[in-house]
């Protein structure tokens, strides 16, 4: 078997004196959608931020695409093909939709087809004919689509996707699920943070469950759905 695309071994992180992650280990292979499930404050977002280099962390191993990314600054990690879509979306509201996409634009690696506005609009029809609009004038769902589209403009091999379903209308959540499936179809791996089991189950191959900063379960999505004990203990509110 080939080496995983993303490997995390014993990752720990702290905000000042308060430790929030304890020996988190997980991996994702090329083209795989992996869900990281857990309640609010379980450590999902911190895990993603630690991977992308926004939070200081210690790890036995943290590698992406064969590169050790532990000491790399965010932009170098992003350039290796690891995209990050933050929970708060963080789109540039002063910029137009087109300009937001331009900030994310990076050349495609090894001869793959680059993402264009047309290809993005096929996944996110709402973005069509919006290029000139200011991002601040978009609805929450549209902003969520834009933030994913912006990351795709960097032609990543993998996307860290933080709670894309949060706070959105059911019909938009469905579009998000379709978008994740479409990304997977183009060969992009996804590490998906979610609380919404239905959403995660619809798109993911495997799942990890995190609680109080430590991984409590790992297995296929089917196994997680079948495991009432884990779901009761760590996922239901």
């Amino acid at each position, binding site marked *: 078997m080939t080496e995983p695309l993303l490997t995390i071994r014993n990752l720990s992180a702290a905000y000042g004196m308060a430790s929030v992650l304890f020996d988190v280990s997980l991996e994702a292979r090329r083209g795989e959608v992996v869900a990281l499930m857990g309640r609010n404050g379980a450590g999902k977002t911190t895990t993603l931020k630690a991977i992308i280099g926004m939070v200081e962390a210690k790890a036995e191993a943290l590698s992406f695409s064969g590169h050790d990314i532990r000491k790399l600054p965010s932009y170098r990690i992003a350039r290796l093909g690891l995209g990050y879509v933050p929970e708060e979306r963080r789109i*540039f509201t002063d910029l137009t939709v087109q300009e937001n996409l331009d900030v994310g634009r990076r050349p495609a690696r090894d001869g793959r087809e680059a993402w264009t506005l047309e290809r993005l609009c096929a996944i996110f029809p709402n973005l069509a004919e919006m290029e000139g609009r200011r991002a601040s004038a978009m609805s929450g769902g549209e902003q969520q689509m834009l933030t994913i589209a912006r990351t795709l403009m960097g032609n990543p091999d993998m996307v860290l996707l933080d709670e894309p379903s949060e706070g959105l209308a059911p019909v938009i959540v469905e579009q998000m699920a379709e978008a994740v499936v479409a990304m997977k179809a183009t060969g992009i791996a996804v590490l998906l943070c979610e609380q919404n089991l239905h959403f995660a189950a619809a798109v993911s191959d495997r799942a990890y469950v995190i609680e109080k900063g430590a991984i409590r379960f790992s297995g296929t999505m089917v196994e997680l759905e079948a495991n009432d004990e884990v779901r009761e203990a760590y996922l239901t509110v």
Partner: protein
Amino acid sequence: MDLSFVIIQSLSGLASASSLFIIASGLTIVFGVTRIVNFAHGSLYMLGGYLGVTIVPLLLDVDRSLPMFLLGVLISALIVGAVGALMEILLLRRIYHVPELFQLLATFGVVLIVQDLVIKVWGAVEIPGPRAPSLRHGVFILDQRFPAYELFLIAAGLVVLAGLWLLMQKTRFGVLIRAATQDREMVAALGVNQAWLFTGTLFLGAFLAGLGGALQIPRVAINTQMDISIITEVFVVTVIGGMGSVPGAFIAALIIGQLQAFGILIFPKITLVLVFLLMAVVLVIKPWGLFGKPDASAGRAILPEGILSLKRFGTVDNLVAGVAIAVLLALPVFGDNYMIKVGIEVLVLALAAFSLHFLIGVGGIVSFGHAAYFGIGAYAAGLLVTRLGFAMEPALILAPLIAGAFAALFGYFIVRLSGIYLAMLTLAFAQIVYAVCFQWVDLTGGDNGVVGVWPSGWATSRQVYFYLVLAFTLSAIIALRHAIYTPFGYALRAARDSATRADAIGIDVRRIRWFAFTLSGAAAGLAGGLYSFSKGSIDPTMISIPMSVDFLVMVLLGGIQTVMGPLVGAAAFHSIKDFFMPLTDFWRMFLGASIILMVLVFPRGIAGAASLLTDRFKPNPKPLGLPA
């Protein structure tokens, strides 16, 4: 006023607005992206002027034409741009993560270094620049003569505005700058190398400062005071416009240009005051300026790291304090006149530094204009004695009261703000006081100040005056220190740590800060009053920005985390200054380099570094929270 006069006046207002905008746009762009208020922006402007008067004449010797003049201006601006880029690589890059106060201080260190370098290279005498060929004549507008070069400047401002608009809207660099102004962390996560972006931004900002400076050469003789005088004006423009906003800088520059052009007709002496008043009013109505947004990086501390440690005195501390006081009491008996003089100055400065520390460390209010209250105290005492014939005793009692009254007046506005805007407003008020003392020559003696501020007969001997100063400063310091441990002090510290939470439990944050500001101002005023009698004179340097910076350096040198830090800092700083200043022509360069070094190496001050060292020998505390 007839129409033609009004038009000419507003045109000349437009010309100065144009220059102001060119310079201010650079500062505001740099702030937007890096979140650093670059004090050295004025130095870059000055450098542009000096390079202009050096390079432009050389080119005019080749060919006396307007294109050559413009080429010279452009080359000067490009060189300044390169200096800015260098400054980013060597200094700013290392301080993006330090608190705002340190960033301000570090860039002020650059100001000091550039001042001495400029004197070294170009001398202290002002240098008149060449006129611009083909623009030396006057243009007649409604029968009034108006200099062609001023019209050219108006056009230059518009060209810069258009150029910046194109750059910002139509280039990838511009889009990235705008994106980074909003969220630089996200920009990095999208794969943009910030180092390159920041260096480019500094190049652009410095280029604009240099351009503004080089364009001034036909209008003003280039001199070594240009940096500070422009930087305060440019601060005002960017703060009124909203920091980070280019359109805001443009509108604010227009307003200020007109205010100055017409204000000078009505209040010729106090145009500067008008400008600062405008700023104060705008900030009270719109705390982020006309076009500014609440700080995108809100929550980032303006304070140096670490919370003030308020351990009460232990046996060792009591012993140290006891020995220190014994030494002080014995000083006039055993010390010579020089030592007594230095002792008086150290005591006075220690009180001033302690009062500033009370604001910063305890109150979380970072004042960049604390010299104002020190200066008001000094001037109040000095003027009461020399102009109104008061004796020393009532003057010394009134000095802190008057300084406190002004602190209450200014503080009313200041405590409404936070972060970098608050620091800018304290600076602005300090500059108002400075401007008044500098310009109201009849009362204050202007630049020369007033001499003959002597103590009463019984206190004329150095020894006696030393004991007087000791009694006053020691009681004031003890009183202030005591206030930290009163309910008022607790409320103030609660407000410092979280204004919203303090507010939620019923603390009137503004009122408590206002009171702290007033108290601190009064204490600084007492120090100022004592200082003026020890000097026998008053002069505007007591209110100047360098004085405010000296106080800040004393506080930070001692370390913000300890109550006694400012006293150690004041003693160390003043002794070093008194020892080295006569030995070197490059005191400012030395001080500037030391400030930068301090920010880079000892961000927690001497006392902080010492406590860090002792902590190292203690077992490491375990992080909180364990896996379940």
